[in-house]
């Protein structure tokens, strides 16, 4: 015993309905329990987690003066908190409680009832011997920093930022491109309602810029994050725009004045379908409404001998600064929302579709730009060879549902393909063919949209487009892109000549998603999508407390789902902030200073960087708030000077002896 007078243990065995009692003879175990040294009360009960079950513990502590509690029931993950609460309610330190898992570890995994009963006894004996050595512990309360970092300024990041900012929280929104808006800013109209993407997105983008609670950093990357839930320290690298944000008024005269009279370089926002100058704004409604200079193409950067007509026209405002340097910001936040989005599948990976080889083969994202009134062709569908298409083939599932590329369904392609079919038909009057494996339209209003397309006379051919070629077998095919397909419903091989092909490319994790994952210490699914803590019940949480997910970085989703998820992530973040404090589990490691030799073995081993070396004392020191109780340092310390709460040597040895006492 540990200075608490005589050991008086209360032992409770839960039936969990028949989950435990169906395999383990709970009555026999309870009777046997009474014979264990130190056990004063031994009971079995149908559901220990129920209110009357918990009350049993409270009453027994008061009446029988118990000082230790052992409950043999389910997994600690499920009900450890419940029983610690009951123990505390009875007036004991909650850490005088210990839990035995006789369900997952015993009744669920064994069939032999007698052996299972014996195993339950062994586990309980170990717990009773261990709990005797438990010490009273206190949970640490750490205040939560109310500011929030959001990484990624697409629709998910924007929506989460506005939600939090409207709730009065300060948000740092970090975006690596020169403008926020993400993929949605590139879309023409949105399915199934056909409202214009820019019309619904740009007001939100402007609201971000105007909001007093939002600090927006574009052309920026998070390079480091330290700390723990409630108290993160984040380093953000801000790349130079070569425009001083505070001085620029966004008149854009500098672009007009550039020595390049004609736009010459492929324009990233239009996926190379249009051209831009070395000084440019990605698109007219970009936020922030500032030009950016591309140092790869700007003459001043290449030769230093430009006339700098841009600087001339900017005049006294002096907003152009060719010497602008990268800068670093360090901020403190209490929670983080990752909304880093996706990239589209690179259709060059499947050479048989001819993307990059045949000019009139487009990706769906390029097609969005082509039909967009603000796009490179002002919304006229003009092909790379200058023609207008009379026939168009849209090939679904390119880079989705395919063992050779990505195995998942990208969820949005069916609907955006239908939308593109409708819009291209509307713009050109062309005959449109969709090639699909399955049409998936489970969203609100989606099936109705599919019906609409069917009635518009768009062709739907069930068969994955197998290849695009340009070798004619008939004069009618000359000069065309020929789609070869098995029409699986009719049961015929068909060759369909078209003028334009749209490849409905799938969504995939960013090429650098792995770096982001490591940076924020979260998990990824095998495909590379960020992993939620629970697919149903914690869909926006990660396994790292205080870091939440929103939008496509967690998996392909459409705009409504991204926005809903962003709202959920914002709400989780708010709940965390408004709880004001986080309670940290006390199962942390601590150092017996007199025994520490200062060898520093532990320091590089700590996965949470919780150990530092105090030069003055020549001793290691553990930051309790950072320690997650993994025990790595405890095991590694050569002098045995690191101990861990709830895993003290005597607790563990007694537990082992208890198990081995099986007779």
């Amino acid at each position: 015993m540990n200075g608490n007078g005589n050991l008086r243990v209360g032992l409770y065995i839960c039936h969990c309905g028949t989950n435990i009692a169906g395999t383990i003879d709970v009555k026999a175990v309870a009777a046997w329990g009474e014979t264990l040294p130190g056990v004063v009360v031994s009971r079995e009960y149908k559901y220990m987690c129920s209110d009357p079950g918990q009350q049993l513990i409270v009453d027994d502590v008061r009446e029988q003066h118990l000082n230790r509690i052992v409950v043999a029931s389910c997994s600690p993950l499920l009900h450890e908190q419940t029983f610690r609460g009951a123990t505390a309610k009875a007036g004991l330190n909650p850490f005088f409680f210990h839990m035995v898992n006789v369900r997952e570890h015993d009744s669920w995994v064994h069939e032999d009832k007698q052996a299972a009963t014996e195993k339950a006894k062994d586990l309980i004996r170990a717990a009773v011997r261990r709990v005797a050595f438990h010490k009273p512990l206190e949970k640490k309360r750490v205040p939560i920093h109310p500011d929030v970092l959001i990484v990624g300024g697409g629709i998910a990041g924007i929506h989460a930022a506005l939600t939090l900012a409207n709730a009065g929280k300060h948000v740092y929104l970090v975006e690596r491109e020169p403008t926020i808006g993400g993929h949605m800013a590139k879309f023409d109209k949105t399915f199934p309602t056909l409202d214009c993407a820019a019309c619904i997105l740009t007001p939100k983008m402007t609201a971000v810029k105007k909001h007093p609670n939002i600090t927006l950093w574009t052309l920026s990357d998070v390079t480091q994050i330290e700390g723990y839930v409630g108290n993160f320290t984040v380093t953000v690298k801000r790349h130079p725009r070569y425009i001083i944000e505070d001085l620029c008024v966004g008149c854009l005269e500098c672009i007009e004045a550039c020595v390049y009279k004609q736009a010459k370089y492929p324009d990233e926002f239009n996926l190379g379908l249009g051209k831009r100058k070395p000084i440019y704004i990605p698109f007219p409604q970009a936020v922030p409404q500032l030009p950016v200079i591309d140092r790869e193409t700007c003459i001043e950067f290449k030769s230093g001998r430009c006339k700098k007509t841009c600087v001339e026209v900017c005049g006294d405002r002096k907003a152009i600064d060719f010497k602008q340097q990268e800068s670093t910001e360090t901020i403190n936040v209490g929670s983080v929302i990752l909304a880093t989005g996706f990239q589209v599948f690179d259709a060059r990976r499947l050479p048989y579709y001819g993307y990059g080889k045949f000019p009139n083969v487009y990706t769906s994202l390029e097609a969005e730009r082509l039909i967009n009134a603000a796009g490179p062709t002002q919304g006229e569908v003009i092909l790379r060879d200058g023609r207008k298409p009379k026939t168009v083939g849209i090939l679904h599932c390119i880079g989705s549902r395919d063992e050779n590329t990505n195995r998942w369904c990208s969820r949005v392609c069916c609907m955006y393909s239908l939308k593109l079919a409708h819009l291209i038909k509307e713009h050109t009057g062309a005959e449109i063919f969709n090639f699909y494996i399955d049409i998936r339209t489970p969203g609100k209003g989606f099936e109705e949209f599919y019906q609409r397309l069917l009635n518009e006379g768009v062709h739907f051919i069930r068969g994955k487009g197998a290849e695009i070629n340009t070798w004619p077998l008939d004069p009618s095919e000359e000069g065309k892109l020929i789609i070869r397909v098995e029409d699986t419903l009719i049961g015929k091989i068909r060759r369909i000549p078209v003028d334009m092909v749209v490849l409905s490319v799938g969504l995939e994790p960013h090429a650098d998603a792995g770096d982001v994952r490591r940076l924020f210490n979260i998990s990824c699914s095998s495909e590379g999508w960020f992993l939620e803590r629970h697919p149903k019940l914690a869909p926006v949480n990660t396994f790292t407390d205080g870091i939440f997910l929103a939008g496509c970085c967690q998996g392909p989703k459409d705009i409504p789902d991204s926005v809903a998820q962003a709202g959920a992530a914002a709400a989780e973040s708010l709940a965390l902030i408004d709880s004001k404090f986080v309670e940290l589990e006390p199962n942390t490691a601590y150092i017996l200073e007199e025994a520490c030799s200062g060898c520093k073995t532990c320091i590089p081993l700590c996965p949470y960087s919780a150990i530092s070396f105090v030069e003055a004392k020549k001793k290691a020191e553990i930051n309790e708030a950072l320690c997650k109780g993994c025990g790595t340092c405890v095991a590694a310390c050569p002098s045995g000077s690191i101990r861990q709460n709830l895993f003290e040597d005597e607790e563990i040895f007694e537990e082992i002896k208890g198990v081995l006492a099986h007779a």
Partner: protein
Amino acid sequence: MAYTYFPGCCMHGFARHCQDSLYAVFNALGLELRELKDWNCCGATSYIAVDEYQAFTLAARNLALAEQAGLEVVAPCNACFMVLKKAQDYLARYSNLRERIEAALARGGLQYSGTVQVRHPLEIVIEKIGIKALREKVKRPLKGWNVAPYYGCLLTRPYTLRNGMTLEAFDQLIPALGANLVDFELKDRCCGGSLTGTIEEVGDRLVYILLHEAKRHNADVLVTVCPLCQLNVETHQKQFIRRDREDVNIPVPYFTQLIGLALGIPEKDLGLDRLLVPLDRVLEEHPAELRAAA
């Protein structure tokens, strides 16, 4: 650089002109070929249609023999090349298959460990000699020749080439010889070789499509890297020239015949006279360039 040479049946039979030119070119490039002793037929694509275990045994026996020599194996026929690679792949992937095949090989005192590399001579030329060095060695550039490459199926299917090599890299061989590259979408589409002589009408059609497309691109020559493709495209061409009086008339040399010509190796050493559709017409149309540079 020395290699174990797995000729396959055709190089000793109807494709001896391919073999002659292969030896001549490898010799000129300082690459040595040592014929695998006691090799047997790889099983091709026919044997597996009767018994897959025996088919894999045939391939594995060759691989086991080649392992003893410890050199990379050069297989100049796409079918042999693929069948040997496939045997390696499947024996590595299917342990029950491997056990059975190993037991059979043990009967003949052979062991298979899967260590040998199977290579196509085209890979060797591109990788070991390189486009640049080859260009420098050309004595008689094939100036004015419009040459379409035809790689056939099995060079890149189902297995991709080693070291990230692509057909586009191979294409560069043609300009290196001084000829014009005729790029050609059908360059890796099936010529129907395995239907030759069985379902003739269908095989014919595939060759017809191939040659017409080559002609549409103004190819004078269709260069092959597989003796089976070579035979198939050549004989079928003769057939429908005779039958339909359709004069496509595109010579179909094996790639080492073309390299040999450009290197200035005497024509008789390259077996040019054994082609059914001779190169004479192309040689006549562009003789000056060819000879002048010699």
